[in-house]
């Protein structure tokens, strides 16, 4: 047991079918509790849709979404034990940092002393101390995502969904943010589903990889196998490596 009282919860998509316009998706997958799973795949393969189904922004047409063994298919997003960080628009632009984080505690912003202490601790932890009164537009892109992570801390839910939250950050900043996510995961032990296009990012923090193609799960496995070049062929093609070698190397004139 970690200090917060509960560890991560297992997430399962049990024969979930979903369609949006022309695109159809079918997911059948289990994400182990307390692990970080990288969700990868080409654009349009359904990565964000998968996360939206877990978060409750989309409702499956058939099948079930189970979190900690509980069918939450009908539950509203707010009622699910889930926090999600989006690529952008994680903050209300007219509210200060403090209030944006506070909404994670109370949707009416009626905060107790305990809540305030938790908010201040979360801001400390994410390196935002002293910036409580700032508005989102007065923050850098990295800082804005830190605010979102601070809210994840005060919400304290056993599942964390990251939908390419660091895609628009530079390499150094991205590395910092990944480190922060890894550290928070170490403390809280929540289950993390992490959508990313960057193999390095997945390699850096993920335990497992789920690879999607054409709206379905094409392969799953341990991250170290995927990145050691022994992963499925479709994945190798996607990241541009064949036979364990980078295409860049292969293309070099000899």
């Amino acid at each position, binding site marked *: 047991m970690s200090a*917060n009282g509960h560890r991560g919860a297992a997430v399962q998509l049990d024969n979930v079918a979903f369609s949006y316009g022309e695109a159809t998706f079918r997911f059948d997958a289990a994400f182990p509790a307390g692990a970080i799973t990288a969700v990868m795949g080409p654009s349009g393969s359904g990565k964000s849709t998968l996360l939206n189904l877990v978060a409750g922004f989309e409702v499956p047409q*058939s099948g079930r979404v189970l979190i900690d063994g509980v069918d939450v298919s009908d539950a*509203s997003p*707010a009622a699910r*034990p889930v926090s999600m960080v989006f690529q952008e628009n994680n903050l209300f632009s007219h509210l200060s940092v403090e209030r944006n984080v506070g909404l994670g505690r109370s949707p009416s912003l009626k905060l107790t002393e305990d809540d305030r202490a938790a908010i201040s601790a979360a801001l400390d932890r994410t390196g935002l101390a002293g910036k409580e009164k700032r508005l989102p537009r007065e923050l850098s892109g990295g800082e804005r995502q830190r605010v979102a992570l601070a809210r994840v801390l005060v919400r304290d839910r056993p599942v964390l969904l990251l939908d390419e939250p660091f895609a628009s950050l530079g390499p150094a900043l991205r590395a910092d943010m990944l480190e922060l996510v890894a550290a928070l995961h170490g403390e809280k032990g929540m289950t993390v589903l992490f959508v990313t296009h960057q193999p390095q990012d997945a390699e850096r923090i993920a335990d497992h990889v789920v690879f999607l193609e054409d709206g379905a799960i094409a392969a799953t496995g341990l991250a170290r196998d995927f990145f050691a070049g022994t992963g499925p062929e479709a994945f190798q093609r996607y990241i541009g490596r064949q036979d364990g070698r980078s295409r860049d190397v292969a293309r070099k004139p000899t």
Partner: protein
Amino acid sequence: MARHTPTPPRYARHPSPSKGERKGAKPATGISSPPSNGGEVVCEANRSGGRISYAVPLPSRARDSRVTLGILALAFIAILIGGALVGLLAAGAGDLSGAVSAFDPYLMRVARFTLWQAALSTLLSVLPALFVARALSRHPRFFGRTLILQLFAVPLALPALVAALGVLALYGRAGYFAGVLSSATGNDWPGIYGLSGILVAHVFFNLPLATRLFLEALQAVPTDQWRLASQLGMGPGAIFRLIEGPALRQALPGISGLVFMLCITSFTIVLTLGGGPAASTLEVAIYQALRFDFDPARAVALTALQIALTAVVVTLLARLGADMTGESSLSVAPRRYTTPSVAGTAFDAALILIALAFVAGPMLATVAAGLQADLGRLVGEASVQKAALTSIVLAFVSAVLAAVLSLALAMARRALALSRRDRRRPFLEFLTDTGAGFVLVVPPIVIGAGWFLALRHLGSVFGAAPVMVAAVNAVMAMPFAIRAVRPAYDAASERHERLAAQLGIAGWNRFRLIDWPVLRRPLATAFAFAMALSLGDLGVIALFGSDSMQTLPYLLLARMGSYRTADAAGLALILGLVCLFLVFAADRLGKERTA
């Protein structure tokens, strides 16, 4: 460290007595109705470690409160319009033979004139507007261009009554041009009444409107096309045939339709400038049937005809893809890469100057005539003060109502659009969307007439005046208010929807914390615009007004009727300035939002 959790997390599990087993995957659909066990669904799950029951509250899978608000707004509108129709039907059924026999040659003549003046007004407004817009678009930069375009936006903001007075002050029997016109025609100038008066006033309103709309169509032509035209060495003829012509032709049906619609439902202009039964439209005839002849049967027949007429026109308009609320904001003029010849420039300048003189004339006349009035005495008059106060209170209530209605409809439309997953639009969403614009089919006079007939059985017609004026004007301003509110709400929702859903911010909390800060400005825009519209209105008040219940436009009409022309001119100046101020404030508020 203890956890700082004042309340247990909402998803916390708690043991509950085992209930009947539910096996297999339950098909989940978008808006599945929540189970009726007090908002909580008991989910069961088979796990290797035994069966545990969870309680999961379902706040947002239940009907969105925004949709409920939208339904309330629609209900309000439906009662207002439906009540009027019931009143008309009851009056018609009560005197069926009377209503049928009211379809006499007089009524047919009125209907014919209504269409005739609208067709002429449209022709005289739209045709010149095509060329004025082309002239303005050929010269995207010249001194005073912005000013001219702003001036062309003024008639849209002016109450029709003020414009009518401006036209009279210029071309009337005692107008500024009477002397010139008398010596030019060799006779005593009889003043501009009847068809000519109506046409001049309608063109004064609609020429600038059509010009701005055509100009917008021309400015929407991609810059690359102008570059290409210049590179290929196209002359003005080729440019007109290949670029300007097609752009204008595409905009023509919509703009003509809009102008035709505005002229067919024009009441105030025809009432003040028509000058008699020879030049009466259906709306004015309804008013006369109720207020002067008290002939309900005739009023019913006229109203039925008016509704049928507007319904046909609006259906045609919808086919043409016209926007009945008429956009008036102009984009930045793109640079043109061809230089017109000297003769072309002179022609354009002449066109623009003539249009400018035509539009500015009545405005200047309004100001000049207004300043000649004894404004100090007018403002001090008790009846003027009382009318002004009544006007302001009613317009305020009406504007608040319009803003609330438009917000409720915008919210409901967005919520419905979000909850749907296929392309087919449900009827309710259609109502909150394009359907709201259809209130313009039922002119204020028609609604007023219906309620007037219904209320005469239920007691004092005039006692209901304040409610009727505020409610009808609010509903009439609503389609315009929606224009300001909906884009802002949709954009904010685009950014905030998922976040709010995840954090469970809904209902009042959502409005207070999330929506209000974003919507303050667009709502103020909607409010100011609706207030201006309501302040200047002489539709419903013409039916319901009385000595004890006067608004400024009503008082103005009364002063005109008793030949106190100077007083009327003074009041028109005051009313015009207030409305202008409000509309430009609305415009400013709207622009700063996007900045």
